[in-house]
């Protein structure tokens, strides 16, 4: 039997007495590409943090490849939404990506780790910038470094939290092209409130606003999204890719 990448059962969670997630059930088969969409404050990032094992469920269960998330971290690569660091923080691109190869307390990084770093930097078109300081990079380059840091672990499950937040349209295009390649090798879960950007890129979509309103093929999600956001899809998706959405609606 093939184990699901992620299995969530009856998950509920409160944050400062406010209900954030309510009885969420979700299965993500291995090597699938799922976008979790929903309005801001709808619990997307909380759900992602549960999958990462950074938060513990109050009720229900989360499993990653059949294990407690905290015991499955070797399988996970993670691209956070924001990393706030000092512009002159003394770290370069290579050392930043190298942290993704962490082996445990007192363990040195090996030459193999550095080789993996360079291969991954090549994959995200950052070869040649290994010695560059993080503070000297553009927003798009920083995002690619963090993607490399997530990928350098050779994860089986890649978790992306609003990856397009600080990225220009050109970079978005190449980013999705890369994800297209990656989804052959791993499961991908992408969290975003930018519905338009994901519609043409993903196979499955999960609509989350405290509860899971929909999980299935992208094609069937339009009505649910409109209900969830409380406005027509054209308005929600107005932005980087409105033309695609309008066409879909005609």
């Amino acid at each position: 039997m093939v184990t699901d990448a992620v299995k969530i059962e009856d998950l509920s969670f409160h944050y400062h007495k406010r209900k954030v997630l309510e009885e969420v059930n979700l299965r993500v088969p291995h090597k699938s590409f799922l976008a979790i969409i929903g309005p801001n404050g709808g619990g997307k990032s909380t759900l992602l943090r549960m999958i990462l094992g950074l938060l513990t469920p109050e009720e229900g269960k989360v499993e990653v490849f059949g294990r407690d998330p905290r015991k499955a971290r070797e399988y996970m690569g993670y691209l956070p939404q924001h990393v706030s660091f000092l512009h002159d923080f003394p770290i370069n691109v290579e050392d930043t990506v190298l942290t993704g190869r962490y082996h445990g307390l007192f363990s040195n990084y090996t030459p193999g780790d550095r080789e993996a770093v360079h291969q991954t930097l090549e994959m995200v078109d950052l070869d040649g910038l290994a010695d560059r300081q993080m503070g000297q990079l553009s927003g798009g380059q920083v995002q690619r470094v963090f993607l490399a840091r997530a990928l350098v672990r050779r994860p089986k499950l890649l978790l992306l939290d609003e990856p397009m937040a600080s990225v220009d349209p050109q970079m978005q295009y190449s980013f999705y092209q890369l994800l297209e390649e990656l989804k052959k090798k791993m499961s991908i879960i992408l969290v975003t409130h930018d519905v338009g950007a994901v519609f043409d890129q993903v196979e499955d979509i999960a609509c989350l606003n405290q509860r899971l309103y929909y999980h299935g093929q992208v094609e069937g999600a339009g009505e649910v999204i409109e209900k969830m956001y409380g406005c027509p899809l054209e308005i929600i998706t107005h932005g980087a890719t409105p033309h695609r959405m309008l066409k879909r609606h005609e």
Partner: protein
Amino acid sequence: MQNAFLAAILVSVACGVVGCYVVIKRIVFISGGISHSAFGGVGLGYFLGVNPLLAAVPFTLLAAAGMGLVKKRMEVPEDTAIGILWSVGMALGIIFVNLTPGYAPDLISYLFGNILTVPTTDLYLMLLLDAVILVMVYLLRREFLALSFDEEFSTVVGMPSEAVYYLLLALVALSVVVLIKVVGVILIIALLTIPAAITREYTNNLNQMMVLSVVLGAVLTTGGLVLSYIFNLASGATIVLFMALAFLLSSFIRRYT
């Protein structure tokens, strides 16, 4: 005077190395809290009749753990909690001194520092603590760097980041004890931040930053010591003001050159 110069070198190691983490991890306020609460340990030393510096070691470590715990586990805003623990530590120190019969000699030197009165036994303790700090930093250099840069990601890759954070605060606590006799609990935070804040402007490599901070700390501490001797001023305060002047000068040079 010889002890004073040796003390200046020993504090430079602690403030140069640990100060880099204080600055890049942005834990200046919590470090200020730890340094002030160390006065509770000094008071406890007087009360128990043991070397106040020795008593400050476990007390400051506990204070650091308490502050870390509040930051990580409590739902109280971090700055509020640190402000409370900061004052509680100092208040405990005053009560312990009150409860101690007789006069408390040198008390003022623990508050404002007096590098000229550091006894040889304290130098040995400072040397030992410096050695512990260097060994910890060497063994956990990867963890401290990753934690300072992105704590959440460090957890995701399997690092026991909360434990590493406590160890980092323990390093700050040990550095505070090393620095007490030189500048006093009230002025310690200047030594933990200024040398590292200056060198951060001149290098992009953490190891280089540490070495430069140690050297700069030694130069500025001994420079301040000499100035205090020439002008007959309080040594701790003179060292801090001399460092602050160097920081201003360095910022000016970086901006206009």
